[in-house]
């Protein structure tokens, strides 16, 4: 049997030209039946465009697609679904108030006469859930289940529609480390049942951990396809970026100065009124990075919002340079040169329908030279934007385009540029590299270190343990709203931190 026949999917010579950009330039993607195929590349490399072409959301200008040996031309997602191609989008397409079963059958409901046969629907959902060991409760409402569970609902949704080829668009971006492990188990069981998976990501560790083969895209071209076992993470990173990548953060010894930021017994409630930050205390000195490691949802969001004036503080005090800033508003805190990189750039960090120029002054728009009294000075604003775009290597055609048009990595660079340019003496950085490609991560990390060396006190909150460990000079582990232990960087042990993050340290402490 010729090797060609092993391919479930062949995309050959795919070219897609947008006005001014060749998003896909003669890309080849060959996926064998039953394999887990990682599609990697920096933001803007053309991964999403390629998958949208496959899924019938875009038309390609050139190239051919063969699926199971037949030449196909996708016109819309329904056709893709009919052929057995399913996609789990990065942002789930679920209805919060409906149950798992209702969401899954939506659009292809089993019927009994004119009525929906719910019993049959439920049975099918359970059957799929059991077959792949997904452990989904068919009667739970989407709003009541975790993000990881919601993703499984999306998986069942496409399996229910008979998918043989499953495309995952950055599936791990929204998951906790445990959920990522569980997802990979699901990948394995899908593979055992003969399904084929295309897995879009830029997290190389995951690529190495789960995939069989890798196709690397760079600047719209397919650079190489390799067998995973034959390459190292570093090899893949270099293929992606096109140059050597520094994995280890190059940082010198910290030279902490005086303590500038003190948090004492901080207590904060979440939106439901539940105390999610339960008496946290720490302090940070000039020229020092204090990291907070932890599984997401252990109070980090509320902690950061409270420290930046976005959330009411229920108890405890916060001092900055000797001043009590506990009760200050977000603007008052910003005006004291406390920078904030928010964890969710689309929700908090950017007004995506504003131009880059307008986003570069968000939070500083009331200050000179951007405005005087209430009058905006667009000349100064545009100049400011142009200089930041240059200094922070934000890849864009103009400072006047909307922020929504930037790739994720460049959006993050915009925010970092904005916060850094105000010369913060304290910087609160939450998930600063989330959803950002390797090249940008390297850049962001080096910028953080540079700021530290200039004397900025930095609070780094991240769910990426490796990030916290490599950047921090001291770090604390947060679990259920408390910092369970604090380490100096050189004493930190990844395994112990991992245990503390999941609460096993606490059990020992309380003697349970």
């Amino acid at each position: 049997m010729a090797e060609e026949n092993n391919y479930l999917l062949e995309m050959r010579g795919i070219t897609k030209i947008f006005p001014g950009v060749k998003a896909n330039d003669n890309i080849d993607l060959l996926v064998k039946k039953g394999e887990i195929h990682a599609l990697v590349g920096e933001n803007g490399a053309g991964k999403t465009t390629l998958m949208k072409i496959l899924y019938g959301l875009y038309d390609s200008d050139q190239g051919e697609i063969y699926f199971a040996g037949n030449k196909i031309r996708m016109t819309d997602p329904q056709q893709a679904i009919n052929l057995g191609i399913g996609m789990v989008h990065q942002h789930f397409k679920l209805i919060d108030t409906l149950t798992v079963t209702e969401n899954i059958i939506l659009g292809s409901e089993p019927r009994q006469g004119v009525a929906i046969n719910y019993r049959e629907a439920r049975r099918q959902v359970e059957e799929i859930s059991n077959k792949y060991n997904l452990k989904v409760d068919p009667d739970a409402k989407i709003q009541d289940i975790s993000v990881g569970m919601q993703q499984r609902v999306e998986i069942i949704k496409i399996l229910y529609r008979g998918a043989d080829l499953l495309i995952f668009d950055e599936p791990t971006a929204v998951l906790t480390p445990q959920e990522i492990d569980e997802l990979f188990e699901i990948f394995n069981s899908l593979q055992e049942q003969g399904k084929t998976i295309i897995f879009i990501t830029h997290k190389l560790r995951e690529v190495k951990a789960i995939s069989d083969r890798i196709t690397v895209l760079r600047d719209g071209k397919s650079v190489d396809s390799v067998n995973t076992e034959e390459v190292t993470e570093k090899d893949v990173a270099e293929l992606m970026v096109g140059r050597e990548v520094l994995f280890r953060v190059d940082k010198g010894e910290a030279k902490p100065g005086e303590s500038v930021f003190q948090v004492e017994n901080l207590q904060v409630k979440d939106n439901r009124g539940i105390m999610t930050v339960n008496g946290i205390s720490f302090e940070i000195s000039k020229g020092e990075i204090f990291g907070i490691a932890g599984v997401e949802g252990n109070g980090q969001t509320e902690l950061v919002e409270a420290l930046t004036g976005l959330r009411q503080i229920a108890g405890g005090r916060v001092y900055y340079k000797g001043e009590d800033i506990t009760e200050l508003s977000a603007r008052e805190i910003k005006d004291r040169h406390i920078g904030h990189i928010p964890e969710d750039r689309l929700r908090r960090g950017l007004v995506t329908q504003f131009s880059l120029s307008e986003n570069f002054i968000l939070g500083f728009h009331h200050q000179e030279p951007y405005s005087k009294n209430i009058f905006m000075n667009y000349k100064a604003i545009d100049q400011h934007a142009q200089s930041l775009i240059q200094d922070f290597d934000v890849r864009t055609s103009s400072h006047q385009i909307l922020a929504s048009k930037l790739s994720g990595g460049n959006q993050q660079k915009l925010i970092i540029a904005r916060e850094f340019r105000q010369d913060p003496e304290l910087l609160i950085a939450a998930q600063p590299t989330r959803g950002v490609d390797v090249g940008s991560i390297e850049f962001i990390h080096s910028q953080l270190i540079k700021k530290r060396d200039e004397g900025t006190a930095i609070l780094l909150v991240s769910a990426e343990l490796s990030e916290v460990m490599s950047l921090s000079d001291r770090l604390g582990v947060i679990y259920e709203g408390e910092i369970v232990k604090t380490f100096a960087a050189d004493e930190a042990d990844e395994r112990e931190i991992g245990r503390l993050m999941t609460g096993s340290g606490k059990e020992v402490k309380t003697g349970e």
Partner: protein
Amino acid sequence: MSELQTTKTDAGGRLINILIELGFALFSIVIALLVGIAFILLAGESPLDAYHALYIGSIGSWREFLNTLWRATPLIFTGFALALPFKAGLFNIGGEGQLLVGGFAAGFVGFYFTGIPGGLHVALAIIAAIAAGALWGLIPGILKAYKGAHEVITTIMLNYIAIQLTIRYGIERYRIGGRQALPTIQDSAKLLRFNDLAELPVVGSLPFIEAFALPGLRLHFNFILALLAALFLWYLLWKTTTGYELRAVGFNASAAEYGGISSKKTIILSMVIAGALAGLAGAGEALGTHHTFMSGMDAGLGFTGIAVALLGRNHPFGIVAAGILFGALSQGGLEMQFVGIPSEIVTIIQALVIFFVAGLQMLKWFLLKQREKGEAE
């Protein structure tokens, strides 16, 4: 409803966007008029005669054009009253009530006080209208900002309260004779009409001023205020920090909050300005058009303003254009009635315009989606 122009892009792209918007607006009007033919035929009339009358009655002569502008004036203001809060993410249905309290305040100051010099009296009456309208915007603004009460509900309720207060209570208390109106305002409170310009000392000697000396012309100076208000709003929205904050809150309230912007302050401010602008509509009607505050003066102007804002893409200049179009429909509608077209048909044609403007937004949305297929993410 999307935006006419939310941010600066390069000049060429900007012009193209404006042309696209204009094209869609014109296209929807043409479609509405075409569909209107069917209704005119149903009524047994000649579409040609009807539309000829619409043309003659609205822009067919200089005089009718000026009257079209007169009809447009309050609609432009109520259009603004919807558009500004809309930029901050609010739906102000209260234009009607804000117009009524503004008109009442102007009418009251206009008749109640005597012996105030002309210019000052008008100014006081207008200020009273602005204050009353602003108050009628402030209340739902505060309720929204501090209590989360939905502005659609509270503004509708305040519309009813305004009707009761001004017409049931206010007019009943002060009216003379059987007419459902406040007493006629003093001459010193009358807003200058264009056809009185020729009698003014210095201005009257200008060569072109005779062109406005037409009998029965009711265009008054509120139209000039409406144009100034358009400039003011445009400047406010795109050239001041207030406008920046307002648009930020409208686009993404969480990001605005992150940027140290108080959404409470912004919500209240946008509602207060909106109320004041609707109040100005009422002032014009009371001081310029009717010379009194009377029952039925609002005539749905507040609600038509919603359609005007929609057609004008919530842009100050777009709203001026849309207001003039609606003014033309209502002014030309009179002429249509003279040639025997039932007034209901006129109303239907106006409704069709609104319908197709909204409908074609869907088409535009769809076309943009299609175009997105050819545009990088």
